[in-house]
C-alpha cells in the first residue's frame, strides 16, 4: 500500500477532530472521502502531508512514517501533490512560473527542462495558451486546472484533492472533474475529499464516509450509495442525493 494510516488522532486544543482513523490506500487507487461538513474529512486529508501536525497515531507514505524523527517532510511532500479548494495559485507569478517554481527550486532542473515539462502539463489540462497569463486573468475552473498541473509538476506518486470543485461556479465544475477523471484513468493514486457524489460513484474505486471524526463505513461506490449499512450514511446520502 502507498498510504497507511493507523489510529490517527488530531485535536485542535480540546477539540478532537479525528478520533482514530485507520485506512490504507493502494497504488493507483482512487479513494473518495465524503461526509457532512465538520466531519473531519479535510483535516484527515491535510494530515496525509502534514499540513496539520499529527496528534497521535501515524501516517506512512510509501514506507516513510511522517511522525518519525528522521523523516524529511519536504522530501515526502514532493511525492504528494495537493489541490486546494481555493486553488492557492501564486498570484504574483505567471501560470508557467507557478508550475515551474518547485521543479526548479526543489529538484534543481534546468530552465529548459522545466519549461518543457510545464508546457506538457498545460497541454494535459488544456491550457497551453494560458502559459503567460496571470492567475487573476483566469476563470476559477482554469485556475484549478493550473493548480492540478502545478501539483503534477513534481511528478508525485499520489494526489490529494481537498474539495477541488467546491469554490467553483456550477458551470465550471465539469472541466475540473474531467481532468481528474483523466488522471484516474492514467492510474494516478488519488484521495479526493468531495461533495460531487456523481464523481465519487463514477470514478472512485472506494468511498469512505466520515462523520464526527471517524470513518463510519467504507466500500465500493455501488455499495455505499445503493446499500449503505449505517443509518448515518443513509441520512447523509438522503440529504445530498
Amino acid at each position, binding site marked *: 500500500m502507498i498510504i497507511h494510516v493507523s489510529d490517527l488522532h488530531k485535536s485542535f486544543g480540546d477539540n478532537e477532530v479525528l478520533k482514530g482513523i485507520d485506512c490504507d490506500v493502494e497504488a493507483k487507487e482512487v479513494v473518495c472521502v465524503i461526509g457532512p461538513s465538520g466531519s473531519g474529512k479535510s483535516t484527515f486529508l491535510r494530515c496525509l*502531508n502534514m499540513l496539520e501536525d499529527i496528534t497521535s497515531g501515524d501516517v506512512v507514505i510509501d514506507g516513510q512514517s511522517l511522525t518519525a524523527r528522521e523523516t524529511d517532510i*519536504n522530501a515526502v*511532500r514532493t511525492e504528494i501533490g495537493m489541490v*486546494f479548494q481555493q486553488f*492557492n495559485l*501564486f498570484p*504574483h507569478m505567471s501560470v508557467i512560473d507557478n508550475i515551474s517554481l518547485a521543479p526548479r*527550486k526543489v529538484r534543481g532542473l534546468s530552465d529548459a527542462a522545466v519549461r518543457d515539462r510545464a508546457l506538457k502539463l498545460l497541454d494535459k489540462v488544456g491550457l497551453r495558451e494560458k502559459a503567460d497569463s496571470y492567475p487573476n486573468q483566469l476563470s476559477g475552473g482554469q485556475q484549478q486546472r493550473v493548480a492540478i498541473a502545478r501539483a503534477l*509538476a*513534481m511528478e508525485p506518486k499520489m494526489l490529494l484533492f481537498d474539495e477541488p470543485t467546491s469554490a467553483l461556479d456550477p458551470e465550471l465544475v465539469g472541466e475540473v472533474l474531467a481532468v481528474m477523471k483523466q488522471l484516474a484513468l492514467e492510474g494516478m493514486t488519488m484521495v479526493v475529499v468531495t461533495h460531487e457524489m456523481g464523481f465519487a460513484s463514477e470514478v472512485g474505486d472506494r468511498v469512505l464516509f466520515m462523520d464526527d471524526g471517524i470513518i463510519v463505513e467504507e466500500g465500493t461506490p455501488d455499495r455505499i450509495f445503493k446499500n449503505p449499512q449505517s443509518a448515518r450514511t443513509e441520512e447523509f446520502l438522503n440529504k445530498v442525493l
Partner: protein
Amino acid sequence: MSRLTQFNWLGVVDYLPALALGLYYTLLVSVIGLIIGFVLGAVFGLGRLSHKKIIYGLSTAYVELLRGTPVLVQAIWVYFALPLIVGFNIPSLVAGILVIGLNSGAYIAEIVRGAVQSVEKGQSEAGRSLGLSQHLTMRYVIWPQAFKRMIPPLGNQFIISIKDTSLLSVILVPELIFQGRLVASNHFNAVEIYTTVAVFYLVVTLTLSKVLSVVEKRLTH
C-alpha cells in the same frame, strides 16, 4: 500682502548653497539610515514571526524599546551618553545615521510582520505542499507578495524618518534645519529661510510619494 512683500525673498538665492549643503546631509542621513532601517526591519520583523522564543523576545524588545522612546531622546543618548559607555566619541553624522536606522527599523519591523501575516495561509500551504522548505516558501511565495503590500506603509515611514532627521540638528548633524538656523541667525531673515527650508522638505517628500506610487503600480499586474 504688504506684510509678505516686505521680506526679501529674492535674497534667499544667496543662501541657497548653504541650504543645498544641508539638503545633501538630510538626504545622506535619510538614505543610509533608511537602508539600515529596512535591513533591521526585515530581520526583526521576521524575528517577530519566529516560533523560537529567544528570537521572538529579542525582536520584540528591540521594537518596543525603539518605538517607545522619542527620536530626540535616542539621538541625544547615542551622541552624548553612549560615548561615555563605550569610551570613544561618535561623530554626529554617524550617530545621526545610526539613530534614523535604529528608529525606522523598529517601525519597519512591524510593517514587515504585518505584511507577511496578511498573505493568506493557503499560499504558504501551497508552497509547502509542493515540497518547498519554509525558507524557499518565504523567499519565492510569501515575501514577494508581502513586499508589495509593504510599499504604502513603507512610504509613510520613509517620509516620517526624513522629517525626523530635522531633530538631528540638536546633535550637530549639518542637515537642512541646522544650516537654515545658521543662516537665519546671522542674517535676520528667519521668514525667508525657514519657509525655504519647509519647501525643501516638501519637495523631497512629494518626490518620494510619487516614486513610490510608480513602484507600486509597476508591481501590480
